[in-house]
């Protein structure tokens, strides 16, 4: 436990840093992320350009900080949307049960069976790539997963006697859902939220890498990797730095969740 002490603070710090960058990124970026600098293409790390430059000679650090807005921002909104919808539907399914539960569960199971990248590809091809389309697509892809987790936890809570007592008292479905069931499943739901956020970041980055995500001249981290892939042969840092940003975010979120929920659940 003591050995993990530093990790428990580093990971949340990285998460908070990236969250802050969604707002502050463009402000504190040393250069205009879209401005072509007086520098070589694919320049290495230097005092002037801390993370080097990209295939246009733009400052990479500024581009990564600005990209945080898209990667972290879109992922966060999509995850909130997915988790919120999943929570509502999952709670409703457990509290109402019967045919409603059955129909909803089978419908969302059907959604799960569609490969997520394929789904994203079709939607973007049909509607074009814009911020709202991306957000809604990502949310739709992850609603079934959120719903599954929420429902399985909620069904277990709903079977407990205190929920039965509330029903026998004549309480309405909403009261049972929000007051009796919800408070007893916050932990798993939050843990799932964090994991789900990581999936969304990775999927968004993949879509962008395939050219289906955030469109130029704006760029999220996935697009940054794609843009600079030409520098791979030269060993340009511009290929690896956005990928490292993705890795730092996802690993930090994962460790943060473990830090908060891991030892609590393992205590029995």
């Amino acid at each position, binding site marked *: 436990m003591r050995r993990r002490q530093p990790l428990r603070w580093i990971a949340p710090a990285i998460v908070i840093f990236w969250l802050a960058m969604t707002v502050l990124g463009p402000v504190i970026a040393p250069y205009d992320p879209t401005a072509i600098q007086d520098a070589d293409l694919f320049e290495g790390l230097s005092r002037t350009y801390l993370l080097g430059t990209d295939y246009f000679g733009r400052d990479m650090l500024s581009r990564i900080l600005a990209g945080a807005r898209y990667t972290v921002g879109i992922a966060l909104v999509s995850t909130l949307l997915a988790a919120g919808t999943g929570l509502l539907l999952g709670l409703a399914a457990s509290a109402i049960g019967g045919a409603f539960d059955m129909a909803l569960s089978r419908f969302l199971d059907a959604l799960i069976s569609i490969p997520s990248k394929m789904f994203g590809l079709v939607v973007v091809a049909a509607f074009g790539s814009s911020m709202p389309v991306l957000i809604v697509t990502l949310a739709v892809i992850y609603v079934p997963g959120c719903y599954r987790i929420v429902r399985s936890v909620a069904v277990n809570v709903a079977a*407990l*006697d*205190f929920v*039965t*007592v*509330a*029903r*026998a*008292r*004549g*309480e309405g479905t909403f009261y049972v859902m929000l*007051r*009796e069931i919800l*408070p*007893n499943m916050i932990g798993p739901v939050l843990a799932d939220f964090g994991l789900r956020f990581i999936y969304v970041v990775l999927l968004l980055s993949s879509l962008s890498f395939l050219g289906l995500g955030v469109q130029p001249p704006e760029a999220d981290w996935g697009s940054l990797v794609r843009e600079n892939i030409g520098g791979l042969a030269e060993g340009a840092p511009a290929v690896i730095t956005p990928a490292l940003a993705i890795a730092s975010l996802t690993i930090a979120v994962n460790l943060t969740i473990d830090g908060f929920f891991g030892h609590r659940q393992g*205590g029995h």
Partner: protein
Amino acid sequence: MAPLIEIRDLRVIARGEDGAETEIVKGVSFSVHRGEVMGLIGESGSGKTTIALASMGYTRAGCRIAGGTVRIGETEVTSLDAKGLMALRGRRVAYIAQSAAASFNPSRTIMAQVIESALIHRTADEATATAKAVDLFRALAIPDPETIGNRYPHQVSGGQLQRLMAAMALITDPEVVIFDEPTTALDVTTQIEVLKAFKAAIAGRNTTGLYVTHDLAVIAQIADRITVLRHGAVKEIADVEALIQSPADDYSKQLIAAAEPAPRLGAEAAPAGAPLLTVSGLTAGYGGVTAEGLPHIPILSDIDLAIAPGRSLGIIGESGCGKSTLARVIAGLLPAARGTITLKGETLAPALAARTKDQLRRIQIVFQSADTALNPRVAVKDIIGRPLTFYFGLTGPARDKRVRELLDLTHLPASVMDRQPGDLSGGQKQRVNLARALAALPDILLCDEVTSALDTVVAAAILDLIVELRRELNLTTLFISHDLKTVRAICDDVMVLYAGRMVEKLPAAAIAGQVHHPYTQLLFASVPELSTGWLARSGAVREGQIDIAAMQVASGCAFTPRCAWRKAGTCDSQRPPVAANGAGGIIACHRPAEALAGPPATD
């Protein structure tokens, strides 16, 4: 001769989640001679299981042996390394757990698991071990000893599984066997079979045993000496007979008093007036209804009952008999398929949603386990306050005042108001559970096994509270229990259920009478008495290997296969008539009351 088990000044320390250490076994010493069975008795948290486990060098996660010595024969258990412990466990010391169902691997055959420890310790080859297992099955009176080993755990009954686990423990001829509440989860009619089998097996093999239980009447049948434990310390060590007859310690006296709850009700005048709650022709079950309007999986059929205001009706029967379902049907949680429920002359709709708020208020249900019946995330004052707000619109100080009154009524300090259920003891939680039901000012309280999950002494206090509440509030109660002693202590009338049917209804005062339904007789005879010779005195019990679910749909009397009075051609095909038994009760049986009073006779 030196004792076989010698425990000296044993101390076990548990580390909490916050890292704080508590001593849960505080310097316990006792010794057990070869061939002797030592009973360890105490309430939960007394350290009885911890001590028993420590005698094979084992502690549960988060606990450690902090001091003292545990010697078995010449071996000092506390100083053994992992290899030494492996050689000890399963070979010289064997363990029988409370839940055999949880201890068997469901995906392997029984025989493979029973002989496993013999193979691990190489005490026998597979053929010899299998032959020995069959002998053990026979000694433990397990049916079909030759073939039962080929089955999987879910294919045998709970009582059989418990004995199969004993066979598993005995396969290596261990010197010491630890019995950890092995019959606690069983019905009394099954428990008696298992106890008889254990007793015979122990006596036949000269086994030394540590028998952990909270049930004094059970331990009195098996043990030679008893160690009374409380809060991790020894209160008294005495021979069984001496302990029961003349306990020296105050706590032992309390335990013995609580084991035989005295009837708590004075002689009351027969109630006048119309019944408060009437149930007639009630049929209910699960899984939708068939074309005839009967449930696919019937649980209760044709139940009639009536409770007069201020009276208490006890519902008794073994697990699966439908007693809890009855409470759920009356409360509307499970709509009845047939039959009517009337409260104060008002017919109630079968389904919860169709009942009025006031009808719901007048019937309150109290569940067995306060751990699950109270929302762990809600403070006590909100748990009790919610019905006040919901039914009476009370809020703010008026609600708090009423909550305080209810806490007072259930003998809880006002200081628990802001606490959450997790901070309360088992007994306190059950009081909050009761207070919440009382907050609705119900006409009738449905108590479903409200004392079953509690320690004997705590349960006795809750029973006292219920009786007090009945007296003060003139409360009408339906009291569901599997425990005859509890029902006898606090109910006016008793209804016996078997496989979802009423077999007998009798005044509590008539329990001691002679004329009973054959099942009632079996049930009453199976309740352990607090005297050493009870098990030896009690007669042979018919093996209860009956598929209750199948009996629920039987056209005749459901008890026929186990009945010692059965009439071939009648009992298995015709519903038994209900007749008065001459002592104020009614019995559903084909045999006349006079015949049931006599010795068993089948024809």
